[in-house]
């Protein structure tokens, strides 16, 4: 007999859509409704078969694996804990506790996506809102350097461009949508206005927008490939809007001026509030990368790239960020939590992961897991483990356990490691 579970939250991306229906039978997912194709994959492609941990490729029982992992951490002078963003906040809290105990460096995937967004926020603040405010109020949307049409498949329908809300009963018809990007993305094709910025020129466009908001007149006709007349039109539209919202992505954080781009955008949004209400929401990628920032901040004071080596938290992106720790060979062991840096990091950093002992907690196969010294096949939060994930707008959503597999959670294993390492 199959059962249909309603209101299930999908842990795939920062949208954390919680209207999914999942049909299950005997510990297997049969059907998934309302999820996007990525979300379908989370549930349908999950392999729930029981697995044992491995030490250097050989299956062992859980106690042996925990002892082996603890021995690696105890022998390490400079352990690195990395990943976090596809795990639940309950496990992230344990990961930070373990880092504190070990004097480790801990970093999340934030450092390779929206790390610069965090630095910009620290520099200038951040006027933001929840996604429901976007749905209910926003009449002008600007997507800058992000492409939810590809990356966050239900974003436009559920929360932004097409969503129907209290003051936007006609959805898309009640909104004007702009896209600023270096190429005409799928999102751009769906926008009312596409402003094509020359690669690496976002900062000067943002500065020009700030100038225009203040009533200044640029002495050029084109900035960063965009006619000033188009930028003027955008500014006029924003100054007269009911509620404007910017979404920004890695087109700003990972190009040229990075955090300076983002700080310029956040400042622009702040300054627009003298004329009309405006907010900005970073388009966060992984299901619970926002939770990783939250948990690290409430326990250490800093959102990512934290070292506990001196017995207290220190924050230094570029130094304690995982890519830099590895590329500098500053880490002599690594614990990777629900992430695949072996596949995604620059070669110089990924190569080091193949040389040093690694402990990997993951619910599925990955390049990093393939090289693990100790591999813990844990449960997947939102599928066979319950937990909490923070949506891109910092709203916490409960993840359900839709099937039972008996696999331990990341939280269980990290808790056992905290007990097993030297005090």
């Amino acid at each position, binding site marked *: 007999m199959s059962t249909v579970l*309603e*209101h299930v*939250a999908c842990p795939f991306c920062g949208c954390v859509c*919680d*209207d999914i229906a999942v049909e299950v039978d005997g510990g297997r997912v049969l059907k998934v409704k309302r999820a996007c194709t990525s979300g379908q994959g989370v549930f349908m492609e999950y392999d729930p078969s029981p697995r044992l941990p491995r030490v250097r490729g050989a299956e062992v029982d859980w106690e042996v694996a925990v002892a082996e992992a603890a021995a690696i951490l105890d022998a390490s002078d400079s352990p690195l804990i990395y990943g976090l963003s596809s795990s639940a*906040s309950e496990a992230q*809290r344990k990961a930070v*506790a373990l880092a*504190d*105990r070990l004097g480790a460096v801990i970093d999340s995937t934030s450092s390779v996506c929206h790390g610069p967004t*965090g630095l910009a*926020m*620290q*520099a*200038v*603040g*951040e*006027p*933001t*809102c*929840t*996604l*429901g*405010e976007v*749905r*209910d*109020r926003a009449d002008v949307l600007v997507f800058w350097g992000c492409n939810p049409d590809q990356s966050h498949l239900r974003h436009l329908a*559920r*929360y932004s461009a097409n969503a129907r809300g*209290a003051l936007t009963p006609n959805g898309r018809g009640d909104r004007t949508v702009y896209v600023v990007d270096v190429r005409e993305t799928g999102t751009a094709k769906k926008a009312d206005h596409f402003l094509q910025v020359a690669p690496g020129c976002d900062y000067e466009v943002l500065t020009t927008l700030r100038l225009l908001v203040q009533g200044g007149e640029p002495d050029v006709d084109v900035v960063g490939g965009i006619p000033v007349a188009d930028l003027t039109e955008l500014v006029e539209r924003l100054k007269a809007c009911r*509620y404007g919202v910017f979404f920004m992505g890695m087109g700003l954080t990972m190009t040229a001026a990075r955090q300076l781009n983002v700080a310029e955008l956040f400042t622009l949004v*702040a300054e627009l*509030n003298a004329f*009309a*209400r405006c*907010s900005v929401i970073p388009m966060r990628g992984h299901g619970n990368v926002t939770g990783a*920032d*939250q948990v690290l*901040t*409430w*326990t*250490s*004071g*800093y*959102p990512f790239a934290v070292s*506990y080596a*001196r*017995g*207290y*938290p*220190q*924050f230094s992106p570029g130094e304690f960020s995982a890519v830099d720790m590895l590329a500098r060979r500053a880490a002599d062991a690594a614990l990777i939590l629900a992430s695949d840096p072996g596949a995604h990091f620059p070669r110089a950093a990924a190569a080091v992961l193949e040389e040093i002992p690694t402990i990997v907690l993951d619910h599925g196969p990955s390049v990093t897991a393939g090289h693990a010294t100790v591999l813990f096949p844990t449960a997947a939060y939102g599928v066979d483990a319950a937990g*909490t994930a*923070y949506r891109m707008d*910092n*709203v*916490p*959503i*409960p993840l359900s356990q839709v099937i039972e597999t008996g696999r331990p959670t990341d939280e269980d294993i990290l808790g056992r490691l905290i007990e097993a390492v030297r*005090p």
Partner: protein
Amino acid sequence: MMLGIVGGRVYDPCNGRDGEVADVWVKDGRVVEAAAIDRERAEIVDAAGLVVMPGGVEIHSHLVGAKVNSGRKLRPEDHRGNERVRAGAFRSGVGGTVPTTYVSGYLYSEMGYTTIMEAATAPLVARHTHEELEDMPNLDKGVFITMGNNHFIMQAVSEGRPEMARDYVAWLLKATKGYAIKLVNPGGVENWKWGKNVSELDDPVIGYEGVTPRKIVETLAWVNEELGLPHVPHIHGINLGRSTSARTTVETMKTLAGRRAHYCHLQFLSYGEGPRHVNKGEAAAVAAAVNADPAMTVDVGQIVFGQATTMTSDGPLQYSLHQTAGGRWMNDDVESESGGGIVPITYKRTNPVNATMWRTGLEIFLLVEDPWRVFLTTDHPNGGRFTSYPQVIRLLMDRAYREETFAGIHARARKGALLPELEREYSLYDIAVITRAGPARALGLERKGHLGVGADADIAIYAEQDDKEAMFAKPRYVFKDGVLVARDGVLVAEVPGRTFYVAPPYDPAIEDEIRAYFERAYTVAYENYAVLAGDVAGAEPVACG
């Protein structure tokens, strides 16, 4: 586990004890009669000559949750130099104006406090607040839920259906595992989402026919009484910081005349028009209104010179602070419910506005006659850090110190000040009232704030000193539920805390209405909104009615 604290001078205002020498006996975490103790097996603490008080009870502090965590993230510079090193199994972290959760728990503990109330959480992010509370040990806790700009409530007010608001509030408190109704700039935060605010109690709330700040306050006060909540409506009124605040504060108090209510961080709401854009302190007028109505309680929100981080659910206030102070600004509009903002600030004795705020806070403390109705807060971290409480206690107890500090503040803030004329000095008994007995009573926490039989064995023991700041900064012993958690101001044990919440009964028919409302009003499913008791470590319901 049995414990005897013998021979101390006990300050236990709830039980009328004003420094009399007495023994306090503890068994299994509670205060018991001497007869219940086998003295051979009890651990004895010699308290001869020491001052014994109940553990401190914090009635209003911003310690955890979405807004506080944004403040932590915003201020790396505030953390540096305030680090706390890991000691054994005790966690490391950072202090400063927005400490990390473990450090907040440890610092309160080391200061003799054992219970805290988180002053403002938007319902939608209550789950986050509870996650952080779980990581804040050594304290019993409660959470105030912001409701003054809640769409469902304003709709009920608009339709003239207060009983619908009542049932919804009951449902909401249960769903968020909240402890009390909090109002923040009622109506003004909703209007801020339209780029506006309210400035009078009868100003309209945009989109809600007939709804005004006054009607929201009146309705929620009525709801609070109907539900028999242990605390009263906890009110941050309109016009905070503005030159009209004293007038509208008194008007709000008169609106609720004779009904129980708590007005928080009153200092920030006690100003009139002054010369050269410096507000005039109106402590006398506001304190007179407090003195006139025995049903109300207040806390002061004293400012302390130095670093602070302003963070409130009052979005338009934070924006105007940003415009005045410049620099970094956080804003967060929360769908259907609330909002908020953050602006870092430094209070300087040489700044006439800051200095006026400083002396106005002290004037309120000294002009409100009944210590049972005025409580010690700095509205942490808005007015200053909670770790400044010993300094504020010294200002209240030591007139010479107060005068010396007053002499050093900006001349324009000294002009017209009442402070030099106020000779009153708080006694140890008064301090026990404003930091323990009074807040516990106002919160309706029957096992807190006293040392009578049945009380939780939360006990702070001090060595009396002339310098009251030094005395209260480092208690000799602090017990939480009978466990020694700090000694000479240093943490010695970590224990879990309770989370108090209320779950008043309501007409279950409201759930269908709320479910239908969720379809329209929220991006989160009704089924995923509620925080379950099992999600909250140490959850303990407190009776209503």
